[in-house]
Protein backbone atom coordinates (compact mmCIF):
# COMPACT_ATOMS: atom_id res chain seq x y z
CA UNK A 1 0.00 0.00 0.00
CA UNK A 2 2.73 2.39 1.00
CA UNK A 3 4.56 1.76 -2.26
CA UNK A 4 1.68 2.92 -4.45
CA UNK A 5 1.88 6.65 -3.80
CA UNK A 6 5.60 6.34 -4.39
CA UNK A 7 4.99 4.69 -7.75
CA UNK A 8 2.37 7.28 -8.60
CA UNK A 9 4.81 10.03 -7.74
CA UNK A 10 7.45 8.36 -9.89
CA UNK A 11 4.98 8.05 -12.77
CA UNK A 12 4.04 11.70 -12.41
CA UNK A 13 7.70 12.62 -12.42
CA UNK A 14 8.31 10.53 -15.53
CA UNK A 15 5.40 12.25 -17.25
CA UNK A 16 6.95 15.61 -16.49
CA UNK A 17 10.39 14.69 -17.83
CA UNK A 18 9.64 15.26 -21.53
CA UNK A 19 8.28 18.66 -20.58
CA UNK A 20 11.41 19.52 -18.67
CA UNK A 21 13.55 18.29 -21.56
CA UNK A 22 11.53 20.45 -23.93
CA UNK A 23 12.02 23.49 -21.76
CA UNK A 24 15.76 22.84 -22.00
CA UNK A 25 15.59 22.61 -25.76
CA UNK A 26 13.58 25.83 -25.90
CA UNK A 27 16.29 27.48 -23.82
CA UNK A 28 19.03 26.09 -26.07
CA UNK A 29 17.28 27.37 -29.16
CA UNK A 30 16.83 30.76 -27.54
CA UNK A 31 20.53 30.83 -26.74
CA UNK A 32 22.02 29.30 -29.89
CA UNK A 33 19.59 30.31 -32.61
CA UNK A 34 17.65 33.43 -31.63
CA UNK A 35 20.62 35.70 -32.27
CA UNK A 36 19.92 35.21 -35.98
CA UNK A 37 16.43 33.66 -36.24
CA UNK A 38 13.17 35.33 -35.19
CA UNK A 39 11.31 33.09 -32.75
CA UNK A 40 8.32 35.40 -32.52
CA UNK A 41 6.61 37.17 -35.33
CA UNK A 42 5.66 40.84 -35.31
CA UNK A 43 6.78 41.96 -38.75
CA UNK A 44 3.36 43.47 -39.44
CA UNK A 45 3.88 46.12 -36.77
CA UNK A 46 7.31 47.05 -38.14
CA UNK A 47 8.20 49.09 -41.21
CA UNK A 48 9.50 47.53 -44.42
CA UNK A 49 13.11 48.37 -43.46
CA UNK A 50 12.94 45.34 -41.15
CA UNK A 51 13.27 42.90 -44.12
CA UNK A 52 16.75 44.09 -45.11
CA UNK A 53 17.98 43.64 -41.53
CA UNK A 54 16.93 40.00 -41.10
CA UNK A 55 19.90 37.79 -40.38
CA UNK A 56 18.02 34.54 -40.99
CA UNK A 57 14.55 33.25 -41.92
CA UNK A 58 11.94 33.29 -39.12
CA UNK A 59 11.57 29.96 -37.30
CA UNK A 60 8.50 30.80 -35.22
CA UNK A 61 6.19 28.90 -37.61
CA UNK A 62 8.58 26.01 -38.29
CA UNK A 63 5.92 23.44 -37.37
CA UNK A 64 3.63 24.75 -40.11
CA UNK A 65 6.42 24.81 -42.69
CA UNK A 66 9.03 22.08 -42.52
CA UNK A 67 9.21 18.31 -42.86
CA UNK A 68 10.67 16.97 -39.62
CA UNK A 69 12.97 14.47 -41.34
CA UNK A 70 14.44 17.20 -43.50
CA UNK A 71 15.05 19.39 -40.43
CA UNK A 72 16.88 16.60 -38.60
CA UNK A 73 19.14 15.90 -41.58
CA UNK A 74 19.73 19.53 -42.57
CA UNK A 75 20.61 20.70 -39.05
CA UNK A 76 23.41 18.13 -39.02
CA UNK A 77 24.65 18.90 -42.53
CA UNK A 78 23.28 22.28 -43.62
CA UNK A 79 23.51 23.02 -47.36
CA UNK A 80 22.82 26.47 -48.80
CA UNK A 81 19.14 27.18 -49.57
CA UNK A 82 19.27 30.85 -50.58
CA UNK A 83 22.00 31.05 -53.24
CA UNK A 84 22.43 34.81 -52.75
CA UNK A 85 22.01 34.84 -48.97
CA UNK A 86 19.26 36.45 -46.92
CA UNK A 87 19.10 39.80 -48.70
CA UNK A 88 20.85 40.05 -52.03
CA UNK A 89 20.71 43.85 -52.46
CA UNK A 90 22.95 44.36 -49.40
CA UNK A 91 25.27 41.42 -50.11
CA UNK A 92 25.74 42.01 -53.84
CA UNK A 93 28.76 43.67 -55.38
CA UNK A 94 28.20 45.50 -58.66
CA UNK A 95 30.73 44.62 -61.33
CA UNK A 96 31.02 44.41 -65.11
CA UNK A 97 28.57 41.46 -65.13
CA UNK A 98 26.01 43.25 -62.99
CA UNK A 99 25.27 42.50 -59.33
CA UNK A 100 26.88 39.32 -58.06
CA UNK A 101 26.84 37.67 -54.64
CA UNK A 102 29.96 35.69 -53.82
CA UNK A 103 28.33 32.54 -52.40
CA UNK A 104 31.64 31.25 -51.07
CA UNK A 105 31.97 34.34 -48.90
CA UNK A 106 28.62 33.73 -47.18
CA UNK A 107 29.09 32.23 -43.71
CA UNK A 108 28.42 28.50 -43.29
CA UNK A 109 25.46 27.52 -41.09
CA UNK A 110 26.29 25.99 -37.68
CA UNK A 111 25.95 22.17 -37.77
CA UNK A 112 24.49 20.22 -34.84
CA UNK A 113 25.25 16.77 -33.45
CA UNK A 114 22.55 14.18 -34.22
CA UNK A 115 20.91 14.08 -30.79
CA UNK A 116 20.60 17.85 -30.64
CA UNK A 117 19.30 18.03 -34.21
CA UNK A 118 16.57 15.52 -33.29
CA UNK A 119 15.63 17.38 -30.11
CA UNK A 120 15.58 20.79 -31.76
CA UNK A 121 13.61 19.50 -34.75
CA UNK A 122 11.04 18.00 -32.39
CA UNK A 123 10.71 21.30 -30.56
CA UNK A 124 10.57 23.39 -33.75
CA UNK A 125 7.80 21.14 -35.10
CA UNK A 126 5.61 22.18 -32.15
CA UNK A 127 5.66 25.85 -33.26
CA UNK A 128 2.43 26.20 -35.24
CA UNK A 129 0.87 29.66 -35.07
CA UNK A 130 -0.47 29.32 -38.64
CA UNK A 131 -2.57 26.15 -38.34
CA UNK A 132 -5.50 28.12 -39.75
CA UNK A 133 -3.63 28.84 -43.00
CA UNK A 134 -2.71 25.18 -43.37
CA UNK A 135 -6.23 24.01 -42.60
CA UNK A 136 -7.62 26.33 -45.28
CA UNK A 137 -5.65 24.45 -47.94
CA UNK A 138 -7.35 21.88 -50.16
CA UNK A 139 -4.25 20.95 -52.20
CA UNK A 140 -3.99 17.22 -53.00
CA UNK A 141 -0.55 16.28 -54.36
CA UNK A 142 -0.72 14.98 -57.92
CA UNK A 143 1.53 14.51 -60.91
CA UNK A 144 2.54 16.69 -63.85
CA UNK A 145 4.85 15.96 -66.77
CA UNK A 146 8.27 17.52 -66.12
CA UNK A 147 8.33 19.37 -69.45
CA UNK A 148 4.88 20.89 -68.92
CA UNK A 149 5.71 21.72 -65.31
CA UNK A 150 8.90 23.48 -66.26
CA UNK A 151 7.18 25.58 -68.94
CA UNK A 152 4.56 26.61 -66.43
CA UNK A 153 7.16 27.44 -63.74
CA UNK A 154 9.24 29.46 -66.20
CA UNK A 155 7.60 30.84 -69.29
CA UNK A 156 4.05 31.20 -68.00
CA UNK A 157 4.49 32.15 -64.34
CA UNK A 158 8.00 33.60 -64.17
CA UNK A 159 8.93 31.74 -60.95
CA UNK A 160 12.36 31.04 -62.47
CA UNK A 161 13.17 34.75 -62.29
CA UNK A 162 13.93 34.29 -58.58
CA UNK A 163 14.07 30.52 -57.93
CA UNK A 164 16.27 27.66 -59.09
CA UNK A 165 14.43 24.49 -60.10
CA UNK A 166 17.72 22.68 -60.55
CA UNK A 167 21.19 23.54 -59.25
CA UNK A 168 22.53 26.49 -61.25
CA UNK A 169 19.32 27.12 -63.25
CA UNK A 170 17.08 30.05 -62.35
CA UNK A 171 17.19 33.21 -60.27
CA UNK A 172 19.00 33.41 -56.96
CA UNK A 173 17.12 35.88 -54.75
CA UNK A 174 14.64 33.25 -53.53
CA UNK A 175 15.24 29.89 -51.81
CA UNK A 176 16.17 27.08 -54.22
CA UNK A 177 13.15 24.92 -54.93
CA UNK A 178 14.72 21.68 -56.14
CA UNK A 179 14.72 20.41 -52.54
CA UNK A 180 11.43 22.13 -51.64
CA UNK A 181 9.40 18.92 -51.68
CA UNK A 182 11.69 17.24 -49.16
CA UNK A 183 11.98 20.42 -47.06
CA UNK A 184 8.43 21.76 -46.92
CA UNK A 185 4.96 20.46 -46.10
CA UNK A 186 2.74 20.20 -49.21
CA UNK A 187 0.08 22.50 -47.73
CA UNK A 188 2.71 25.07 -46.84
CA UNK A 189 3.92 25.03 -50.43
CA UNK A 190 0.46 25.61 -51.89
CA UNK A 191 -0.48 28.19 -49.28
CA UNK A 192 2.76 30.16 -49.73
CA UNK A 193 2.48 30.17 -53.52
CA UNK A 194 -1.14 31.34 -53.32
CA UNK A 195 -0.53 34.07 -50.75
CA UNK A 196 3.01 34.62 -49.48
CA UNK A 197 1.95 37.84 -47.73
CA UNK A 198 -0.29 35.85 -45.36
CA UNK A 199 2.88 34.15 -44.09
CA UNK A 200 5.13 37.17 -44.14
CA UNK A 201 3.89 40.72 -44.76
CA UNK A 202 7.36 41.71 -46.01
CA UNK A 203 8.08 38.72 -48.21
CA UNK A 204 10.14 39.58 -51.29
CA UNK A 205 7.95 37.21 -53.29
CA UNK A 206 5.13 38.74 -55.33
CA UNK A 207 1.53 37.70 -54.69
CA UNK A 208 0.56 36.28 -58.07
CA UNK A 209 -2.86 35.69 -59.56
CA UNK A 210 -2.71 31.88 -59.68
CA UNK A 211 -6.02 30.19 -58.84
CA UNK A 212 -6.15 26.93 -56.86
CA UNK A 213 -5.68 24.81 -60.00
CA UNK A 214 -2.67 26.80 -61.13
CA UNK A 215 -1.17 26.66 -57.63
CA UNK A 216 -1.63 22.87 -57.58
CA UNK A 217 0.20 22.59 -60.92
CA UNK A 218 3.14 24.56 -59.55
CA UNK A 219 3.23 22.53 -56.34
CA UNK A 220 3.04 19.31 -58.37
CA UNK A 221 6.04 20.48 -60.39
CA UNK A 222 8.03 20.93 -57.17
CA UNK A 223 6.97 17.39 -56.25
CA UNK A 224 8.03 16.08 -59.67
CA UNK A 225 11.51 17.67 -59.51
CA UNK A 226 11.88 16.63 -55.88
CA UNK A 227 11.19 12.99 -56.70
CA UNK A 228 13.18 13.00 -59.93
Amino acid sequence: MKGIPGIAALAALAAMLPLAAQADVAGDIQQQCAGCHALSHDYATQGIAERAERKAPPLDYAGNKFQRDWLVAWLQAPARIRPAGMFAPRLAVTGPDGDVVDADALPAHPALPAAQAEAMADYLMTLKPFDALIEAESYEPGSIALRMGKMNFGKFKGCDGCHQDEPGTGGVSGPELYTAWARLQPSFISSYIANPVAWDPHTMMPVGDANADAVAKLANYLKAIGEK
Partner: protein
Amino acid sequence: MKKILLVSALLAMAGVAQAADHGEQLYETYCMQCHGVQGHGNGVNAAHMSVQPRDHTDTKEMAARTDDELFKVIQQGGKAINKSVLMPMWGGNLSDDDIHALVAHLRQLCCGKD
Protein backbone atom coordinates in the same frame (compact mmCIF):
# COMPACT_ATOMS: atom_id res chain seq x y z
CA MET B 1 3.29 83.99 -38.18
CA LYS B 2 6.60 83.70 -40.00
CA LYS B 3 7.70 81.08 -37.51
CA ILE B 4 4.60 79.02 -38.08
CA LEU B 5 5.12 79.15 -41.84
CA LEU B 6 8.72 78.06 -41.41
CA VAL B 7 7.74 75.21 -39.12
CA SER B 8 5.04 73.96 -41.45
CA ALA B 9 7.40 74.25 -44.42
CA LEU B 10 9.94 72.16 -42.53
CA LEU B 11 7.28 69.65 -41.60
CA ALA B 12 6.14 69.42 -45.23
CA MET B 13 9.74 68.88 -46.32
CA ALA B 14 10.16 66.18 -43.70
CA GLY B 15 7.02 64.53 -45.08
CA VAL B 16 8.43 64.56 -48.61
CA ALA B 17 11.78 63.24 -47.39
CA GLN B 18 9.99 60.47 -45.53
CA ALA B 19 8.01 59.48 -48.63
CA ALA B 20 11.24 59.48 -50.64
CA ASP B 21 12.88 57.25 -48.04
CA HIS B 22 9.90 54.96 -48.14
CA GLY B 23 10.06 54.66 -51.93
CA GLU B 24 13.76 53.92 -51.73
CA GLN B 25 13.26 51.24 -49.07
CA LEU B 26 10.50 49.60 -51.09
CA TYR B 27 12.71 49.70 -54.17
CA GLU B 28 15.55 48.05 -52.27
CA THR B 29 13.34 45.28 -50.89
CA TYR B 30 11.26 44.39 -53.94
CA CYS B 31 12.97 45.69 -57.07
CA MET B 32 16.76 45.55 -56.67
CA GLN B 33 16.79 41.73 -56.79
CA CYS B 34 16.16 42.11 -60.55
CA HIS B 35 16.66 45.78 -61.45
CA GLY B 36 19.96 46.03 -59.59
CA VAL B 37 21.38 47.92 -56.66
CA GLN B 38 21.86 50.96 -58.88
CA GLY B 39 18.72 50.42 -60.95
CA HIS B 40 20.67 49.59 -64.13
CA GLY B 41 18.61 46.44 -64.78
CA ASN B 42 21.35 44.03 -63.75
CA GLY B 43 20.33 42.69 -60.32
CA VAL B 44 21.45 39.30 -58.98
CA ASN B 45 18.66 37.53 -60.89
CA ALA B 46 19.23 39.25 -64.23
CA ALA B 47 21.96 36.89 -65.47
CA HIS B 48 19.49 34.02 -65.07
CA MET B 49 16.59 35.68 -66.89
CA SER B 50 15.55 35.35 -70.54
CA VAL B 51 14.23 38.94 -70.71
CA GLN B 52 16.38 41.63 -69.13
CA PRO B 53 14.86 43.96 -66.54
CA ARG B 54 14.46 47.57 -67.63
CA ASP B 55 17.34 49.96 -66.86
CA HIS B 56 15.57 52.46 -64.61
CA THR B 57 18.31 55.04 -65.12
CA ASP B 58 17.70 55.11 -68.90
CA THR B 59 16.30 58.64 -69.08
CA LYS B 60 14.99 58.39 -72.64
CA GLU B 61 13.06 55.12 -72.15
CA MET B 62 11.73 56.01 -68.74
CA ALA B 63 10.71 59.54 -69.71
CA ALA B 64 8.59 57.99 -72.47
CA ARG B 65 6.28 56.48 -69.82
CA THR B 66 3.65 58.39 -67.87
CA ASP B 67 3.32 58.04 -64.09
CA ASP B 68 0.05 56.17 -64.67
CA GLU B 69 1.78 53.69 -66.94
CA LEU B 70 4.48 53.08 -64.35
CA PHE B 71 1.84 52.66 -61.66
CA LYS B 72 0.01 50.10 -63.78
CA VAL B 73 3.04 47.94 -64.58
CA ILE B 74 4.10 47.87 -60.92
CA GLN B 75 0.62 47.00 -59.71
CA GLN B 76 -0.36 44.51 -62.42
CA GLY B 77 2.94 43.28 -63.82
CA GLY B 78 4.52 43.06 -67.28
CA LYS B 79 1.66 40.86 -68.48
CA ALA B 80 -0.79 43.77 -68.14
CA ILE B 81 1.16 45.86 -70.68
CA ASN B 82 1.99 42.96 -73.04
CA LYS B 83 5.50 42.62 -71.67
CA SER B 84 7.30 39.78 -69.97
CA VAL B 85 5.77 37.89 -67.02
CA LEU B 86 9.24 38.15 -65.51
CA MET B 87 8.18 41.63 -64.39
CA PRO B 88 5.91 40.55 -61.49
CA MET B 89 2.68 42.17 -60.33
CA TRP B 90 3.09 43.78 -56.91
CA GLY B 91 -0.50 44.87 -56.23
CA GLY B 92 -0.95 42.06 -53.70
CA ASN B 93 2.12 43.12 -51.72
CA LEU B 94 1.89 46.91 -51.91
CA SER B 95 -0.73 49.56 -51.19
CA ASP B 96 -1.53 52.31 -53.70
CA ASP B 97 0.49 54.70 -51.53
CA ASP B 98 3.46 52.35 -51.67
CA ILE B 99 3.23 52.20 -55.46
CA HIS B 100 3.04 56.01 -55.72
CA ALA B 101 6.19 56.20 -53.58
CA LEU B 102 7.87 53.76 -55.98
CA VAL B 103 6.84 55.79 -59.03
CA ALA B 104 8.34 58.86 -57.36
CA HIS B 105 11.53 56.91 -56.70
CA LEU B 106 11.67 55.77 -60.35
CA ARG B 107 11.40 59.42 -61.44
CA GLN B 108 14.33 60.24 -59.21
CA LEU B 109 16.38 57.38 -60.66
CA CYS B 110 15.66 58.17 -64.29
CA CYS B 111 15.39 61.86 -64.30
CA GLY B 112 16.64 63.24 -61.02
CA LYS B 113 13.26 64.58 -59.87
CA ASP B 114 11.15 63.87 -56.80
